[in-house]
């Protein structure tokens, strides 16, 4: 079984091979180092002139990518830690996302900015955050989050080769070493994929009774959600349906609404901070969906910086037990 790391790395190799316009840029991305999280391993050896080690200039290199994209290339820019995406917000929000539209659709910005988010490794307050929530809802910017399901490499590949608009591509640090789970390999689960380029996935425990809770999530939290779903089913006879998104923004409510029409209960999970997190939009769209009798809750990080010490970090970030508890509370409502 391939890992998410290998899948992403293979996708980048494929993209560079496939299209001579693809460039890969970032800090410390050259071999033998191959990037802080090793996603770029081998790229510079194979494509020396299209893999560029950049200075430590997160804002600058995202802007660089915008300029390259505007002139017909398909750059992929790596931001070493997602925490530093704050340095590129102006380039993302005021340049990358607007250029096409401002030009009356005359130009395109086929840029991918990849970055690892997430904690649980004790890296402390500036190296553990899940900050994509601050970039959701920026018009003109697509935000995609990989997960272990199906084909994370293919997801990246589509963003790089087929998407003519800027994509912020989120990876969770803990996911890299996890195995990729083809839908057909998910033996305990009955899994479906929505249509569309960046699909959502619907997962139910195979053979279980009809679910009474819809769990909407993405990224690494989908791992925790699967674990929680199994415990909920086997230990508590509470049955859930997971809806795992890959496209966070623009948010497409239909997959979650479709499930909610059957369950009426919604649990949104994310590792980022609760307030104005992705889950807020999920809940908002759910209530706007006029389903009648909707009950909903969120599990997310406490609205707090992320401490370095393991025992503190565990208190701030959402844990499997938190999911369990929230689901049980919801089931009782």
């Amino acid at each position, binding site marked *: 079984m391939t890992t998410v790391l290998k899948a992403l790395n293979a996708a980048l190799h494929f993209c560079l091979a496939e299209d001579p316009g693809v460039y890969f840029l970032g800090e410390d991305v050259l071999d033998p180092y191959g990037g802080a999280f090793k996603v770029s391993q081998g790229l510079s050896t194979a494509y020396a002139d299209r893999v560029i080690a950049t200075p430590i200039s997160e804002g600058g*290199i995202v802007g660089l990518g*915008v300029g390259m994209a505007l002139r017909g290339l398909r750059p992929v820019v790596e931001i070493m830690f997602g925490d530093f995406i704050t340095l590129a917000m102006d380039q993302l929000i005021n340049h990358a996302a607007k250029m096409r539209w*401002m030009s*009356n659709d005359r130009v395109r910005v086929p840029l991918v900015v990849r970055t690892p988010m997430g904690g649980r490794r004790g890296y402390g307050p500036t190296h553990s955050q899940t900050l994509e929530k601050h970039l959701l809802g920026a018009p003109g910017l697509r935000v995609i989050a990989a997960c272990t399901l199906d084909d994370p490499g293919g997801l990246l590949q589509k963003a790089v080769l087929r*998407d003519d608009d800027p994509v912020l591509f989120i990876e969770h640090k803990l996911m890299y070493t996890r195995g990729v789970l083809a839908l057909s390999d998910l033996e305990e689960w009955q899994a479906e994929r929505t249509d569309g380029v960046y699909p959502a996935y619907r997962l139910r425990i195979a053979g279980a009774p009809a679910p009474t809770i819809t769990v909407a999530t993405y990224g690494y939290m989908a791992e925790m959600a699967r674990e929680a779903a199994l415990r909920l089913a086997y230990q508590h006879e509470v049955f859930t349906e997971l809806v795992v998104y890959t496209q966070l923004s*623009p948010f497409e409510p239909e997959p979650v609404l479709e499930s909610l029409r059957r369950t009426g209960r919604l649990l949104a999970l994310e590792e980022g901070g609760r307030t104005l997190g992705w889950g807020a939009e999920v809940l908002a769209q759910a209530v706007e969906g006029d389903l009648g009798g909707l009950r909903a809750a969120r599990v997310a990080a406490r609205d707090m910086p992320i401490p370095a010490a393991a025992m503190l970090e565990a208190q701030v970030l959402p844990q499997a037990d938190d999911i369990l508890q929230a689901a049980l509370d919801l089931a009782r409502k």
Partner: protein
Amino acid sequence: MTYSSDPLELYRQMLRIRRFEETVLDNFPRGLFFGTTHTYIGQEADAVGVLSHLQEGDVVVSNHRCHGHFLAYGGSMHALAAELMGRATGVCGGRGGSQHIQWRDFYASGILGGTLPLATGMALAEKARRSGRLVVAFLGDGALGQGAVYESLNMAALWHLPLLLVLENNRYAQSTPITLNLAGDILARFQAFGIPAEERDTTDVLEIREMAQQAFQAVRAGEGPRALVIHTYRFAPHSKGDDTRDPQEIARYRERDPLPLHASRLDPEAVQKVQAEVEHEVAAAFQRAEGDSAANPASLTPPLGAMS
């Protein structure tokens, strides 16, 4: 597009900008425009002198004060007027307005300094594609406050990118004199990043053209980025009516108005003919734009395209 080096044509280009901008300022109180504007009056020699070296396909990256750059680049006066009026026929269909102009290989944005990383990336792309094209990026003295500028200088120099930086030091950023904004030395800032730079305190279009010549050659020859620092002055307010500068200071700089300075070297009859032609061109452009229909809300597309 071809760019003329004929002195009379250089005069025409400067006059087109001047009369366009004056007409904009004159008509603002009429409510013809919505939003804001930053005029180029006084600085015309910069764009016209520098861009006279452009070749087809070269890229120009401009800033908030972009009308002069755009017209010198070869942009349509009518389409620019229409953009300012919010007409469907505007350069960007009314979406961009005065500060956000995109047409062919010309790009302008109102975020100071943020355009420099873009220009650097464009230069990287042109180098990568071996297109032989170069990128000319304009910035003001005030934009030197932005960190993005230095991130760009570093990368452009490091990778020997075909980027020509044109710093127009009009001695003010909005209301703030350069002495309150800038420490050290402008030229040294470029040089510290390994970018050869040259400066001139002039409004003479021929001198600017001449100064730019070598820089263009070096950049086009693949020698990496170059910077031109032009010390100049704007005669009109920062945008519309906001001028707190000493009127005597303005008057002093007006004495070296680039237009009469250059016109004095030309055949007066030819100058008169050009003046009449430009007068006609400007009037026609604004008249036509005024008659165009307003941008149509139904034309608004979503900001993300469909995927292939």
